[in-house]
């Protein structure tokens, strides 16, 4: 009898403990999942924009060099043609 009562008591405690802690609903879990996906998408976009920025910076530097070289050649040519 005692053992039976003890077992019944323990079972009741477990049922209550399991039922008492609250969990997020299905909608709330979906909200969390959507937010995670949005963050991942933003990180991907940022990586792509950063790559664009790096490529443009490199292109601008190259063009700067070409412009300096072209102006130098133009001046040399003007000088030479003046002397002819």
């Amino acid at each position, binding site marked *: 009898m005692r053992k039976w009562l003890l077992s019944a008591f323990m079972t009741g405690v477990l049922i209550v403990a399991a039922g008492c802690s*609250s969990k997020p609903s299905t909608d709330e879990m979906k909200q969390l999942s959507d937010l995670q996906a949005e963050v991942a998408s933003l990180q991907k976009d940022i990586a792509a924009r950063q790559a664009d*920025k790096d490529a*443009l910076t490199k292109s601008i530097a190259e063009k700067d060099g070409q412009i300096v070289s072209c*102006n130098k050649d133009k001046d040399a040519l003007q000088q030479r043609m003046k002397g002819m």
Partner: protein
Amino acid sequence: MRFLTRLTAIIFLVCVCAFSVWSQEMSKEEWQKQITDLTTQRNDLKNKLTTLQGEVAALQKEDADKAAALKKCQDEMAAMVGGMEAPFAALLDRIDASINELSRLSNQDLWARRAELDSVQTWLDAAKKNALSVLPKYSGRISDEQGRLDALKKSLQQIAESGSEMRVYTVGTWARDRDCLWNIAKKPKIYANAFLWPKIWQGNRDEIKNPDLIYKGQRLKIPPKAELTAHERSALRSYWSKKHAAAAASNP
């Protein structure tokens, strides 16, 4: 009684399992914390993305401006040069082709065509006087061609100093001089190396039809001493191949 005890034990075990599974799922507090953190992260990322997009747009404009400036400079250069560039480039191509051809000649042929080096030098001097020669794409090329021409002139000088521009050997008799191509090549004043006889043979194909038969009085040009060329080695192999075939045919 026993049945009740067993039933209670089973229910107890089920509850223990369910509790352990349940306890691994996210709690409401944990969910809330993640939502808050992710929302903050999302907002920061959005701000960062907006800033980056602005920077990229500014850089795109700057890149386009630089491209326009470069094109302007190139157009001004083209306007200055006018129609000068095509004939100038053609002159450089002609100089290059001439030097290529002269570089492939043997010492004898180069010596025979040595006057052409002066013509090429005249063309190069004219190119240097042209205004376009100051441009890097042409000045480097002119400098290279002058270097190659100087190397050819040096070769010509060495040919003249060595006396190897032209040597002629007049064939004597077998009885007195034992002159055959092998012995001629062996002479110290010729090659001092009998194995170079194919060089004499190939250098005188118009005179020597059969390398085993040379005649008194034949004037044989002696090419400069050097290792046998691929052509000369091939001729030698062909010579021995025919000799062996003839020997095999006569001794079946």
